[in-house]
């Protein structure tokens, strides 16, 4: 018999990490939910757009004052210009042009380029902030459950405070104070969004702690770290994945809301920033407010579909 070093005893961590069969089983269950596949498809499209899109379109911040408020291709608007010399109002039809298929905004910026840039920002913020929040939540939840005593008490009381804080007000306050930059927005959403995850993981860890397989592993002399990393984390990993996928839409929405009220990163174009511009030109250029909203809506919808499908696929009690 070959000697196994600690951490190599592969059989002890079947759930998710190494079991291809289990992954296959979950994938099969997920596939039964059509809507979640549609969601996954759109997310894939967004990821590709976010990575490669900016290479294919023009600079989203480039302004061109000759082509203000150009409608999308296939649409046209009437524009009335008052000529001060002849004292006449001339009405011209402005039609969409193929070089700006989704139109331009009130500064002549290309809508397509801005939407592509927005996809990148939304995904970046959504994934990074959720990553920070879920990591912190898992870490603090497990810590709280395992250490117990005053650490647990202090952490959970702090969680209570954070959960009671008017969340959006806190976001606006911190972003305003420290200045609107992408890094601040990601950090703030990540550092304030871990509370739900921490509570859930803590309660899950508390119940897992008393299970026989953990007791057995402890009886065999496993250290706390080993129990946590080889038994506990793998067993809550499905919960972590579902939580992450269901909290991404909230994060994307939070970023869009911040940019919408004027607290977006001025150096980058996000859907919220475009909506902020569009809000002021509703009567002259409807598409500026419509297009980013549709993208935002479809993105959030896709993550909700996908997260819902994942939750059902991971839940042994749910019939899919």
């Amino acid at each position, binding site marked *: 018999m070959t000697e196994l070093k600690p951490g190599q005893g592969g059989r002890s961590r079947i759930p998710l990490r190494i079991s291809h069969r289990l992954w296959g089983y979950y994938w099969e269950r997920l596939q039964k939910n059509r809507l979640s596949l549609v969601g996954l498809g759109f997310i894939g499209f967004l990821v590709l757009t976010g990575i490669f899109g900016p290479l294919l379109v023009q600079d989203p911040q480039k302004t061109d004052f000759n082509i203000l408020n150009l409608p999308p291709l296939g649409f046209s608007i009437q524009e009335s210009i008052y000529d001060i010399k002849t004292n006449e109002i001339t009405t011209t039809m402005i039609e969409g042009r193929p070089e700006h298929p989704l139109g331009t905004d009130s500064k002549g910026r290309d809508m397509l380029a801005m939407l592509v840039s927005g996809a990148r920002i939304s995904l970046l913020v959504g994934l990074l902030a959720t990553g920070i929040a879920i990591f912190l939540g898992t870490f603090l939840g497990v810590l709280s459950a395992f250490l117990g005593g005053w650490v647990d008490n202090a952490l959970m009381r702090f969680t209570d405070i954070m959960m009671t804080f008017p*969340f959006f007000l806190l976001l*606006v306050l911190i972003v305003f*104070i420290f200045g609107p930059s992408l890094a601040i927005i990601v950090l703030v959403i990540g550092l304030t969004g871990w509370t739900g995850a921490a509570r859930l993981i803590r309660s899950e860890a508390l119940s897992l702690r008393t299970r026989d397989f953990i007791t057995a592993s402890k009886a065999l002399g496993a250290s706390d770290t080993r129990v946590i990393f080889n038994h506990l984390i793998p067993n809550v990993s499905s919960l972590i994945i579902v939580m992450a996928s269901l909290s991404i839409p909230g994060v994307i929405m939070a970023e869009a809301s911040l940019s919408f009220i004027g607290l977006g990163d001025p150096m980058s174009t996000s859907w919220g920033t475009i909506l902020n511009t569009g*809000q002021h030109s509703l009567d002259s250029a409807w598409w500026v*407010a419509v297009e980013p909203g549709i993208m935002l809506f479809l993105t*959030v919808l896709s993550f909700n579909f996908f997260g819902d499908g994942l939750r059902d696929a991971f839940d042994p009690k749910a019939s899919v």
Partner: protein
Amino acid sequence: MRSYIIKRLLYSVIIAWGILTITFILLRVGPTSPVDRYILNIAAKGQDVESVRQAIEARYGLDKPIIEQYLLYMGNLLQGKWGWSFSASQPVMELIGSHWIYSFQLILLATIFAIILGVGLGILSAVNQNTKIDYATSIFSFIGISIPGFWLGLMLILVFAVYLGVFKTFYDTSYPIWSLENLRQLIMPVLALGTGELAGYVRYTRSAMLDNLRKEFVTTARAKGLSERTVIGKHVLRNAVLPLVTIIMFDLGSIVFGGAYLTEIVFGIPGLGQVSFNAIFANDYAVVIAVTLIGTFMVLFINLATDLIYTYLDPRIRYD
């Protein structure tokens, strides 16, 4: 029971104190000072900026160390003095007193709208499980959950105010609060704010109804020969409503400074969201702290009320 309530109230005060402290520190360590706005006006008049700054800081106690300022603020607060609003040039409580009603009315109407329609659609969906009605309702609720409320607001303005001209594009504050004209112009804000909540309630009601429809007491009720109407209305619904109370209350706490905040900004409703928004941008820290505290107390009060209502609705639950 009484000792439980007292304990909870004490705990609420501690949480509120924690939030107050965090907000205070955030506001006072920020790079900007509430004096900046004054300075801006004075600089235009050509006075000596530095001496004016010192005079103002001394007058409002802003030149003292932050600990002293904090203790001073706390002391005033305990005497019921909420401070002075720099940006509105009136006492904080006067400012809040003249604006809270707008937020309250909006949230109240949106919640009533969401509960009535949401629970209704949820029941309809559950009773017609796996029919076209059920599928249509599910799709509708998915859309409702995913649509950003502030964007829905923009789209409503675009269609009904800009293009169809059914409503005004701005919120008219000249009407008395509960007059018919005012209620009429609140239709769009209520739709924008309520749709997300409504969609959530549809889903919860549906799943809670389905859970209870499978229970044995429903079979018993049917076996007794009760009409389907009585079975659904009296036996299933009453049990399904229970968890819904928690969700509605929780929502109420979170929309106060989430959705309502943005809805007020989109429609220009001069509620507390608008007030706190302006206060943050003007560094008006007394207003920001006051609004944050009010929001916090509302959430804490709602939580406590939920738990107490629960013991009334479900006598099996007791707190000791």
